[in-house]
Structure formats: structure tokens, C-alpha cells
């Protein structure tokens, strides 16, 4: 844990000093106004956005896996992200300038809840079958979203959403991501409730729990965390899928212990991918989604091929 935090601190510092504009410690200590401006309006917001998005989306994946009783369920494989985007397009079309946060959140919540009830009705719950349905469901919602976007000519605003990028993050437009903090704390407080539900409905009822309430709580957490990330940053492929699975592989599924670990590993992974995407064609930024797809996607395939009994 100490090593993890240390590497997070080192990489975070590195992240502050990487970029097109030159910035070094000397300038900051001397109080150079230009350097401070760069630090506080661009570099620091970017770093915070990376940490919050990485932690938030990984925790969202962790909770989704618990409430859907499936290893390969994540906001990206259960339609949550697509539903958030549908909400965004609807708000663009009906309310003009984007400001209807509640529409994005409620659309993500309703979509995720719908998916959870859908998979409860499936009699056999194959590990791969559940996320497969989620992906199909997500694609259907995405098709509807694209249709609306075409019809009302808002396709371009939608495209900025689909590919994650931290390069446009400035002070004043990432603060919504702080919503991840209370959400993660809430997940921690209800960790035992959520893990009991992850053992199945009858298991939870035996322990005197209200299973439906836990599901709804879990859906709220997942939908709010992942919708806020996709709104500010865009889609971070495989993050919610890979990080919780790797953590569970090495540490088991004790949710209380895994929450801080998942948050830190998630933040670390995004931080690394962001650094790579900033350095690979320096001084230009490559969208982080590209680096992540390759890196995290590769890990995901390895996870799938690995141990069949584990999957």
C-alpha cells in the first residue's frame, strides 16, 4: 500500500511537469506568474481529473461486478455509458446548450437499473453471456442516440464524448468529477451490504437484507460515477473492467479492502496511460483512449484467456 501511494505521488508530480509549455520547479518557487497560471489552470486540473476519473470509474466497475454477480460486467459492458450519452443528446436537443445534468444521470440510472432487472430474468447466468447482453443493449441505445444526434445535427458534440482526452481539461470544467469522492465513501460505508448481495439474492435475504434496496444503491453509485466521468473526460475503455479484475485476482474479493486498492490502481493506470499519450508524439497529445484501448484491452484479453475456472 505504501509503495503504491509512493508511486502514485511520483507519477503525479511527473504529470505536473510534462506538457507543451515549459514548467519547472524553479519557476514555481520563484512565483513566476505565468508558471503559476499554467500550474493552477491547466496542469493541476488535469492531474486531479485523471486521478478522480481513474479512481471513480474503477470503483464503478467494482460495484457493477458485485451487484450483477458477474466478473465482466462494467459500466462499458452494461449499457450505463451509452445511456448516459443518450441522456446527453436528449438534453442537447430539448434544452439547447448542455446544462441538464439530471437528464444524463437519470438516463444512466434508469438504463443500468433496466439492465440489472433484465439479467435477473435470465435463467442461466453464463459469465460471458451477461456482459454480451450488456454490450448488445449498449449498442441498441447507442444506435438510438446516434439517430437522434443525426436528426438534430448534434453529432459533433457527441463525438468529443466518445474518445477520452484529458488535454482539454482546464480549471472550471472538471469539478463535477469530485462527485466521485462522496460516491466512493458511500461505497465504502455500504461495502458489506454490497458484498452480501454479490453472493446472491437468497444469501442476502438470509442475512436479513433488503436485496432490492442494495441493488438500487449500487446502480445509483455506478451510474453517477461513470456518467460524470464520461461527461467530463469521455469513454475510458476497459478501465472499469480491468482494474477490479486485476485487484481481485491478487487480493480476493473483500470489498472493504479492495475499494482503496481499486481506486489507487485505477488512478495509477490512467495516470500512466495519460503520460504515455502525452509523450509518445510530444509535444502533441494523443487521446488517452487510444493508449488505453491497447494497454487495458490487451490485459482484458489475457484475463479472458487465463484461468477458465476463475472466469
Amino acid at each position, binding site marked *: 500500500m505504501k509503495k503504491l501511494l509512493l508511486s502514485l505521488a511520483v507519477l503525479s508530480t511527473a504529470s505536473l511537469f510534462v506538457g507543451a509549455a515549459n514548467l519547472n520547479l524553479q519557476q514555481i518557487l520563484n512565483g513566476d506568474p505565468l508558471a503559476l497560471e499554467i500550474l493552477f489552470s491547466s496542469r493541476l486540473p488535469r492531474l486531479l481529473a485523471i486521478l478522480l476519473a481513474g479512481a471513480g470509474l474503477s470503483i464503478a466497475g467494482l460495484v457493477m461486478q458485485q451487484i450483477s*454477480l458477474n466478473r465482466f460486467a462494467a459500466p462499458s459492458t452494461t449499457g450505463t455509458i451509452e445511456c448516459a450519452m443518450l441522456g446527453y443528446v436528449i438534453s442537447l436537443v430539448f434544452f439547447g446548450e448542455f446544462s441538464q445534468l439530471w437528464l444524463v444521470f437519470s438516463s444512466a440510472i434508469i438504463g443500468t437499473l433496466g439492465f440489472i432487472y433484465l439479467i435477473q430474468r435470465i435463467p442461466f447466468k453464463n*459469465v460471458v453471456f451477461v456482459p454480451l447482453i450488456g454490450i448488445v443493449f449498449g449498442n441498441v441505445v447507442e444506435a438510438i442516440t446516434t439517430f437522434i444526434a443525426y436528426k438534430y445535427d448534434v453529432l459533433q458534440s457527441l463525438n468529443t464524448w466518445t474518445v477520452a482526452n484529458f488535454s482539454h481539461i482546464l480549471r472550471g470544467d472538471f469539478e463535477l468529477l469530485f462527485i466521485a469522492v462522496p460516491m466512493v465513501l458511500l461505497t465504502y460505508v455500504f461495502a*458489506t451490504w454490497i*458484498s452480501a448481495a454479490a*453472493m446472491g439474492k437468497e*444469501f442476502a435475504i438470509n442475512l*436479513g*437484507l*433488503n436485496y432490492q434496496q442494495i441493488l438500487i444503491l449500487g446502480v445509483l453509485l455506478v451510474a453517477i460515477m461513470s456518467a460524470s466521468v464520461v461527461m467530463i473526460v469521455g469513454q475510458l475503455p476497459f478501465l472499469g473492467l480491468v482494474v477490479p479484475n486485476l485487484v481481485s485476482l491478487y487480493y480476493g474479493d473483500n470489498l*472493504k479492502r479492495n475499494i482503496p486498492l481499486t481506486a489507487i490502481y485505477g488512478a495509477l493506470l490512467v495516470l500512466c496511460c495519460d503520460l504515455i499519450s502525452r509523450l509518445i508524439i510530444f509535444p502533441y497529445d494523443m487521446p488517452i483512449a487510444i493508449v488505453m484501448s491497447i494497454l487495458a484491452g490487451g490485459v482484458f484479453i489475457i484475463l479472458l484467456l487465463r484461468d477458465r475456472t476463475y472466469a
Partner: protein
Amino acid sequence: MIQVNQLSKCYQGKKVVDGAQAQFERGKVTAIIGPNGAGKSTLLAMAARLTSRDSGNVIIDGKEIAQWNTGQLAKRLAVLRQANSFAMRFTVQELVAFGRFPYSKGRLTDRDNQVIHSALAYLDLVELKDKYLDELSGGQRQMAFIAMVLAQDTDYVYLDEPLNNLDIKHSLQIMQVIQKMAHEMQKAVVIVIHDINFASCYCDTILALKHGKVVASGAVDEVIQGPVLSSIYETPFEILTVKGKRICSYMV
């Protein structure tokens, strides 16, 4: 005491359980037997609030099951169904700790840790406590789930096919634990079981179901009888007495 009155349930127009009448007393092991599809598991699930019923009632310590606060009931009644999911990787100790949830809501006290430890010791699992469930054999895993039920510290325990897929050694071990839970700890233990010889040798009372109806119930001597069993299972039965126990022979 748990009293089941006229319990019925229809599923897709078919009566799965039909006016079942039963009584589960503390200090006794009750076996629910019967052919496949007789409604044994459904009866148990209804008597544990896991499944809804169409009519009838279940009285637990003088109070109808629906009147019970579900969190309070979890301190009186523990139920273990077959086929628990292994989507999650927990260690034996983490699983057993779930049994304390009704008391401590996830924040374990010293007393909880004591109860968890003695449950592990009772099932001889202390050495395995840090192993993950998916690393255990089927028998060890079943023992771990029973330890969890034990940690729940309830007067009533329902186990749905606790011997499913277990070898003889583990089956015997589990039946001995079940017997001790009833006779030494004064719990009412109710098990759904297919092997009637285990039911005959280790249980005190037997409830036999067929087509959702209770067709026989009472002490072992009353139910383990050739003609009774032959009509339940539609198979010729012969009852032998070995070392004072009634053993059923049904091989032709």
C-alpha cells in the same frame, strides 16, 4: 418452534406445494424427503421467506413470518440453499464473517470474532480459514457454508440438500455436525435430503412429500417402513435393521 400451516404454491398452473402441514421443533433434526419435483426445496424456501407463497402461513416463535422484521428474523433463522454462487472470491473466514452480519452490520466486534472462530473450530476449518473458497474441495466448501450458518447463531437452521455432490466421508462429517447442532445446541435443524438412509440414521423426524403434498410425517420408525416408502418412491423397498438403525434396501 416453527409451525407450517396449509402452505401452498402454484407455479405455472401446477401446484408445487399443496396444503403442506409441518412442525419443526428445537433439539430435533427434521428431514424432508421425497422424489424429484415433490416440492421439498420450495417448501423450505417458503418457510424461510425466500419465495412467496400463495396461501397458508408459517408461524415462527408465535409470530407469522411476514410480521417478522427480516433483520430480526435473520438472528432466529438461517437458511442455506444449494448452488451458492462463486462469482466472488472470498476466503473461508470472510465467508463465515457474513454470518455475523445480522448482529454487527459489517463492523465485527470481539464477540463476533469469537463466534467466527468457534464456528471455524467446530467444523475443523481453522487451518483453512485463509484459503479462498474456489481453492477448496466441494466438501470443504460445504463445511465453510455450514460454519457461516453456525456463526449466524440462530435457533432454526434450514439446509437445502447439504450432501449434494459430496463424498461419503464429508457426508458423514456433515450429518454428524447437523446432529450435534440439534442435540447439543438445541437448534431445530431442517434438511432436504435425497439419501433416505442418511435421513433414517441421523434424523429424528421425517416429512415425506409427493406431488407437493405431505404424504407421511412423524418419527423415523413411523416413516421408514417398506409400504410407506414404496408408495412414495414407486419402488419396492425392504427395511433392514443394522445395529439398531433402519436401513432401506431398494436394489431389485
